[in-house]
């Protein structure tokens, strides 16, 4: 066979990955089929190596017949990296530019989509408390990973991360001391449970689930980078339909609505922090 013919065949590993993602969807309704393939491939290779399977097909076989394999594999497939007040300038822009608009509403809904272990949930809850908006706000914190959601609800973090969280909070324009909001012990910190009085934690997939109504602010940072472009479009469409008129959408520092089919439904609000406002041009 000449090179051109070989080229048209999928590599075996690519076929295996496609089949495993299909199995994961049909058997467990987790849909990673439209995730960005480079990263999925990397993480499945990692899972295969570390779990000691000879092939990705062998891993698929186990996944189909052994339910306990599901959380293990989801742990590999969903990336859980965050910190409190990550990119402090983003939170500063929320505080300085978005909050003045939010003040004009009698009640507020905020959606943290892909909340992971809750770092951003607590960051926004603290920011809203500092700005006196907490009492009129309901926060919706969603993720597809149950372990992450439980972690988010617990609000417990390793003590060695607190220094970074504290510095971030300060440079985000924090008006209080972060230590007011947690108690430390046994190498961990536990965040004040009253911070989650206004938070609803819920299992929600941007891939397969529907609109969440009338949000004033949606924060979804470094979640859509794991999606391919059609799936990004779906998620951004979902955000558009979930936002109230003139509602705000914040995305990750290196994400962009420019390449999206919905680009014209949003306006840049704070350009350098990737904060957009719903409303056509």
């Amino acid at each position, binding site marked *: 066979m000449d090179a051109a013919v070989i080229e048209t065949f999928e590599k075996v590993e690519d076929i295996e990955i496609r089949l495993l993602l299909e199995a994961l969807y049909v058997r467990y309704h987790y849909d990673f089929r439209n995730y960005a393939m*480079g990263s999925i491939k990397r993480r499945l290779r990692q899972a295969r190596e570390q779990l000691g399977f000879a092939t990705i097909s062998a891993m698929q076989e186990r996944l189909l017949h052994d339910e306990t394999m599901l959380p293990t594999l989801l742990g590999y497939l969903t990336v859980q990296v965050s910190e409190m007040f990550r990119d402090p300038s983003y939170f500063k822009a929320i505080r300085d530019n978005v909050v003045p608009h939010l003040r004009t509403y009698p009640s507020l809904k905020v959606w943290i989509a892909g909340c992971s272990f809750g770092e951003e949930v607590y960051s926004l809850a603290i920011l809203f408390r500092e700005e006196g908006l907490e009492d009129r706000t309901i926060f919706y914190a969603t993720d597809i990973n149950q372990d992450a959601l439980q972690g988010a609800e617990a609000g417990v973090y390793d003590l060695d991360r607190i220094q970074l969280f504290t510095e971030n909070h300060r440079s985000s324009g924090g008006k209080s001391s972060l230590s007011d909001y947690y108690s430390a012990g046994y190498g961990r910190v536990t965040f004040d449970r009253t911070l989650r009085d206004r938070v609803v934690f819920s299992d929600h997939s941007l891939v397969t689930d529907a609109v969440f109504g009338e949000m004033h602010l949606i924060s979804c940072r470094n979640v859509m*980078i794991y999606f391919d*472009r059609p799936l990004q479009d779906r998620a951004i469409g979902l955000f558009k339909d979930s936002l109230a008129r003139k509602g705000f959408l914040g995305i990750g520092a*290196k994400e962009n609505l420019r390449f999206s089919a919905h680009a014209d439904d949003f306006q840049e609000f704070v350009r350098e922090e990737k904060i957009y406002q719903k409303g056509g041009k």
Partner: protein
Amino acid sequence: MIRSLPRAIVIGASAGALEALSVILPALPEDFRLPIFIVVHIPPDKRSVLAELFRAKCKIRVSEVEDKEPIRPSTAYFAPPDYHVLVEKDHTLALTNEEPVLFSRPSIDVLFESAADIYGPDVVAVLLTGANHDGAKGLLLIARAGGEVIVQDPETAFAAAMPQAGLDLCPDAAVLSLQGITDYLRRVG
């Protein structure tokens, strides 16, 4: 064997990167046709100034990668601090926040591995100066996929560890000076 023309170039560099890239990138002509993906180790908390800096010096386009950015020819793409860069099949660049590899995010290995997957033999990988071992494994994957692999001569590199680690894993890699690398790239691009 006749090697087909490369479709992309990947470069990894760490300590001493700025000086090394200052020899290579500004010397590439306006009609250089290939995209170049570059990972330089940068502290995660710094806003990277690399793209701005080189934009002023280069004849080719220079940009910092944004997620799902379509790949254009004649462009040098820098990985942003705190993200890995991967090449996707649909000729876009994807960013991820996956855990650091060898303490690095961006990681040279991650970029090189995905370039090996997407381009197979049609990529040139260059491992420059650096004081750690990132990039060596990725270089091996590119060599195995049939791509061209080059290391900066450890003798003349600002920091020898990284190109030496690459050479240890890929003994057949071409060992070139910065000028040699520049001349080679000008020929293939």
